[in-house]
């Protein structure tokens, strides 16, 4: 039965590597440079937020279910915002006009020119 355990593969190469010795000195800050290269490579491969959004727009949003849900959510948000803002405006106008009505009738609250 064939096994994929690494200990049973490339025995010849493993033996050669065990016997190999090098007297060459490592360059200065070798390990630090290696880690920097690794970090740089990882940073380049990690997707940015914009790339993720662009990917979502390009691949996910065109799906009918996703598009319908997206538009429906925005419609609900727009309707809610419109109704809330209108309610605030109506309350403000009613309070202002009510106050002006009272100012017309009450000399002690009237706005003098």
């Amino acid at each position: 039965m064939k096994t994929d355990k690494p200990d049973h593969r490339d025995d010849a190469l493993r033996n050669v590597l065990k016997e190999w010795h090098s007297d060459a000195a490592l360059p200065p800050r070798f390990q630090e440079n290696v880690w920097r290269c690794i970090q740089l490579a990882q940073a380049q491969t990690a997707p940015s937020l914009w790339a993720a959004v662009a990917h979502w727009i390009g691949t996910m949003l065109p799906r009918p279910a996703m598009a319908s849900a997206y538009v429906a959510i925005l419609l609900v948000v727009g309707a809610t915002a419109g109704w809330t803002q209108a309610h605030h405006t109506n309350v403000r106008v009613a309070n202002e006009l009510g106050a002006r009505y009272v100012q017309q009738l009450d000399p002690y609250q009237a706005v003098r020119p």
Partner: protein
Amino acid sequence: MRKGLLILVFGLMAAAAVYGCIYLTCTASARSMERSDKPELAWLKEEFNLSDAEFKRVSELHAAYLPQCAEMCKQIDAQNLRLKKLLAATNQVTPEIETAIVESSRLRGECQRQMLEHFYAVSRTMPPEQGRRYLAWVQDRTFLSDFAMQ
């Protein structure tokens, strides 16, 4: 990507359109009141559900009351000026100041009596329930607020 962008923009435009439609529809009445000749009376009609006939009568009462109110304003301003001069001229309560304070109180009482008469007259032109609501509302904002403990 192009299709996705179109959906994105369409969704935002649809949301903005719904926002505008609902806002304009729901504030149509308020904007109409603000544009009217007498916004305060238009508000009164709307707030207390007055019929056209009731509104006409209320408008007549309002127009008839305004000259009385203006006359009271004139007397109150004159009395305030008189009292201010008396107060500035001394550092104690003089008989003249006492008289001016009594006169100010009399003016205030007269002003409140006239206002109350007007409020009752207006409330009588309204349907009973709206009339009671109007009286409670207007009294609370006029002379009853003068006696409120802060």
